Structures are given as C-alpha cells and as structure tokens.
C-alpha cells in the first residue's frame, strides 16, 4: 500500500496549496454532527410539507422513507470518499481528484447554490416566524419581514467571519434544542404522556388518503429530499476537523440516523393534527408545520418551545449553509477555478472571509426576491445533481484506487449496490421534479450546460494543471 494513509498521525492527507495561512483544525465529531444535522433539521420544521401538497400525506411518508434510503446511500458513499479526501470543498475536492476539473467546477457550483438557496429559504422562514409571533403577541398591522430576513443573514455571516469553532459550537447547542423540541412535541401530542390529540384516521380519510393516486407518490419524491437535504455538507469541515478519518464518517452516519428518526416523527405529528391541504401548502397554508401543530395542541409551553425550535432550526441551518457554501467557493478560488481573490484566509480568524462576504448579497437577492417553493426547488435541484455525481464518483474512485491502494478511514459495504440504488432514486426524483416544476428543471440544466462551456473554453486557462491534484495519492490505475 502506498504512503497515503489518511489515518496516519503524522500525515493528514492535506496537500500544499501555496497558501501561507491555513484553516484551523479545531473541530470534533460532535461538531461534524452539528454541521450536518444543523443544516438539515430545518427541513423537518419547514419545506418537507410541500411533499404532502404534491401527493398527499401517505405519499409524503413513502417519499420520506425512499428519500431516507437515498440519503443513507449518500452518507455511506460520502463517508468513504471523504475519509480519504480530507480537504475543504467536500465533494468539489473529491471530483477534482477522481473525475476531473470540469466535473469539479460543476459540483462546486451545485454545493454553493444548494446551500445558498437553503440559506435564503431559512431566512424567509425566520422572517415569517417573527411576523407570526408579532401577531400572536398583539401586533395588528402587517409586519414587514424583510428587515428580519436581512438581519438573520447578516448576523450569521458575521458569526462565520469571526471563526469556525464558535460558529459550529453555536450550531451544536441550537440544533440539540431544535431536535429535543420535536421529541417533546411527539410525546406531548401522541398520547404516550397525557391525552393525545392525534387523529390520523379522520384526517386522512376519503380523498385525503392519496389525492393524486400513485402518480402523487412519485411527485412527492421531489420535496421528500427536503427531509435530509444538506447532510452531505459534513464533508466541508474536512480541513478543519482534528481527526478527519474518524470524525467525518462518525458525524455523518450519526447525523443520517438522527434525521431518519426526526423525519418520521415529524410526518407522524403533523399529519395527525393538520388537514393535508393546509399542511401541503407551504406558502399560503402551513409555512412552519411543527409550529402549527404546537399551536393546535392548546399548550402555550409547546407553542413557545416549537417557536424557538423553528427559529433555532432556521438559524442553525442558515449558519451551516454559510459555512459550507463559503468553503466550496473558497476552494474553487484557491484552485483558480474562480478568481483567486476568493481563495484568501483571514489572517486572524482563519476563515475564508472574502467568500463569506461575497455570498451574503446573493443569499439576500434570493431571500427577498423569490417565493419559498421556488427557492427550495432551486436548492433541491442543485442537490440532486450533486447526488447524481456521487455514484459515478465512488465507482470511479474504487476503480482508480482499489481498496488495497489507499487506506480508507471508512469502507462502505455492498459496493456497488448503494451506488446503483442512489442512481436509480435520483432518476425517479428527476421525474418527480418534472411533475410540476419541469420548466425550472430545464432552466437549471441549461444553466449548468452554459457555465460548463464557459469554464472549459475560457476559465480553465487560468488553472494550474498538475497543482490541482493535492492529495498524496499514487497515480490512478489506468492512467
């Protein structure tokens, strides 16, 4: 085996980038969990319920579990590759080493847009929540949500600017509170403790069962991804964790297990309390379904708990998104895929500060200028393209560097079955997005075709060829 052991105490797999100041290695497995779950948990607090609107409550449950299988494959595949490619940029850096520069450029953009759109969606939800709380506390006018949306994005960008340890420790605390809030709501409303208020049978009878038939199950897969979208973001912390080979697989796999529990509980609570048409309309009906479920519980304590839970989940997610999007943008700048100005690290705080600041106005444009379902769809589509890349990536990874050539921190089982399952589920989800949002899907693909041509025929001339390959790996098999 070549001298490429990522688990080595003396070699961490980092390669030279020519930068004088690097990112700080200060994070542990709990921070990785907090980054992954923190980004995603907001998907239980808002957005997933569009799946109910697209197919009904049962369709949303089936989508939840199929999307759970999709993301379990993502987490397994990602854990293996990331435990070996321990550098900022996550899947972007993986693609650069395994498939090639153009693929890497596209993957970098998938990451930036998926996270920046998710951040915008979080800010919209936080603004909505403030307006609801204002109404509940006696304000009679129509509250302007825009200042709160701007405040959320600016505050979290500032936090990210100041340092990664404080940012992700903040995430760890508020993510834990948001997760516990879901558990408390489940016990308080299900009848396990006290009197239950669930009424699944009555709320799902008649046309409410499967309003669009089996086609609705397929359509619901579109927003089923929202239960888990972003868990793959754990890889962005690879250059800042103390032990990437151990912390990244542990944090990622613990994260997906947490989310599978939270997603199923969320579906159970909301469909047992809220009528499906109201639940399924995340723009005119239930913007924050768990919060709405708490409102119908009749408990002031639960309303406050889920109000804070929703707010914390949106903040944790937006916080993690700023962290991840800026790392991906920074990595592309460092490799000259984007102007090198973005590849700078703050001399004092050791953060990719220029990338953090640059992405703030973009998030604001989307948060203030587009409706929530469009923003979410844009994020999901970018994520989906990234998931389509992953099976190709791991198949080529195993082919170019077989198990006996590089020591992995984690080896995912049953290869290549998870890759094929993931590819099949991605294909199904493209059809699901096509049902209802086909124009946006085509616009998005055309965008990536145009930027790919722009990169290949123009931008790539500014990129060093051999210097991009920064991992201490042997020559790939077959080259």
């Amino acid at each position: 085996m070549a001298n490429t052991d990522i688990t080595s105490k003396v070699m961490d797999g980092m390669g030279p980038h020519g930068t004088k100041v690097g990112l700080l290695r200060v994070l542990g497995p709990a921070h990785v969990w907090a980054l992954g779950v923190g980004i995603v948990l907001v998907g239980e607090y808002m957005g997933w319920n569009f799946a109910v609107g697209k197919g009904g409550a049962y369709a949303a449950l089936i989508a939840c579990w199929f999307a759970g299988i999709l993301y379990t494959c993502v987490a397994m595949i990602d854990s293996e590759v990331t435990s070996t490619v321990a550098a900022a940029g996550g899947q972007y850096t993986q693609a650069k080493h395994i498939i090639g520069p153009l693929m890497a450029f596209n993957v970098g953009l998938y990451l930036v847009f998926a996270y920046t759109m998710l951040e915008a969606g979080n800010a919209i939800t936080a603004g909505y929540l403030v307006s609801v709380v204002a109404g509940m506390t006696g304000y009679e006018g129509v509250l302007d949500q825009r200042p709160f949306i701007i405040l959320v994005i600016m505050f979290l960008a500032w936090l990210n600017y100041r340092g990664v340890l404080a940012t992700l420790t903040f995430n760890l605390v508020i993510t834990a509170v948001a997760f516990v809030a879901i558990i408390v709501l489940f016990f308080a409303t299900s009848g396990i403790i006290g009197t239950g208020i669930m009424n699944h049978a009555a709320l799902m009878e008649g046309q409410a069962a499967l309003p669009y038939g089996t086609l609705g199950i397929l359509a619901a897969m579109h927003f089923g991804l929202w239960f888990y979208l972003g868990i793959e973001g754990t890889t962005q912390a690879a250059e800042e964790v103390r032990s990437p080979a151990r912390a990244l697989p542990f944090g990622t796999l613990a994260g997906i297990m947490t989310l599978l529990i939270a997603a199923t509980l969320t579906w159970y609570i909301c469909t047992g309390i809220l009528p499906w048409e109201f639940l399924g309309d995340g723009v005119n009906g239930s913007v924050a379904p768990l919060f709405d479920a708490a409102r119908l519980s009749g408990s002031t304590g639960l309303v406050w708990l889920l109000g804070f839970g929703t707010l914390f989940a949106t903040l944790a997610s937006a916080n993690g998104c700023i962290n991840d999007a800026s790392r991906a943008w920074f990595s592309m700048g460092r490799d000259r895929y984007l102007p090198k100005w973005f590849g700078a690290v703050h001399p004092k705080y050791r953060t990719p500060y220029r990338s953090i600041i640059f992405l703030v106005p973009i998030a604001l444009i989307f948060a203030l200028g587009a409706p929530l379902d469009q923003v979410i769809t844009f994020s999901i589509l970018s994520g989906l393209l990234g998931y389509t890349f992953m099976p190709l990536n791991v198949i080529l990874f195993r082919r170019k560097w077989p198990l006996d050539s590089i020591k992995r921190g984690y080896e995912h089982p049953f290869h290549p079955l998870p890759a094929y399952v993931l590819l099949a589920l991605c294909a199904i989800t493209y059809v699901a997005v096509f049902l209802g949002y086909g124009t946006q899907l085509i616009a998005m693909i055309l965008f990536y075709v145009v930027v790919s041509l722009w990169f290949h025929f123009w931008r790539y001339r500014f990129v060093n060829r051999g210097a991009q390959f920064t991992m201490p790996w042997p020559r790939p098999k077959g080259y």
Partner: protein
Amino acid sequence: MARYTPPEQSKIGQLIDVVVLLGLSLGALFVPLRMGLSGAAKVVATPVENPTWETLGQTAVQAAQYEALGYTPATAHDLILARFDYSFEWSSLILMAVLIIGYFVIMLRLSEQEYKDVINEKFGE
C-alpha cells in the same frame, strides 16, 4: 509533458468573470420566474359557490381543525380545492431525460480530457 503555465488574470478580468457567473445564476432562477414559467401553480378546477365544509368535502374532524386554525369555508376555499395538474407530454419527459443524460455525458467526456493533462503533469508521462 511540458508544464503548463497559466496566464495571470487581471483584476478587471476577475471581476468580469464573477459578473458573468452571477448574471447566469440569477438568470436561471429569475427569468423563468418573471416569465411566469416556473412551477406549476395549483389551480381550482371547479370552484364552489357559497362554500360550506360539506361542499368542500371536509369531515367534521377536518372542519374542526380548519376552524381551530382560524379558517372559514370561504377563506379555506382555494386552499382546499387547488390541485396540481400532472398531465404531461411524453415528448417533454423524453426531452428532459435527453437533456440531463446529455449534460452528464458531455461533462464526463470534457472532464476526462482535462483530467489526463492533470495526471500527466502531476505524475509525469
């Protein structure tokens, strides 16, 4: 293989590249949005005049939840009756599939060309 030395890009050039990328990204979301092409807005196919919970197809339990949320049959009318239209042309679905597969095929082929140069320069011919 001769080592490739990339040209140094001017600050103006860097700025133009960022503006181009930003323009394309904003266009991808906002052009379909402004043209009213994005998303399939739900429509009420058969409106109900003077709606009641019964005529809206709601059971007593469902109606009670709507009332608890602050709705009346009139204010809940559009929310309850609006539906997606999932009728589609097979040709559109095939076009989408061709577009996605074509995108990945082109990208993998161009990436492979670039990748060979990277490996050759990194590890030598």
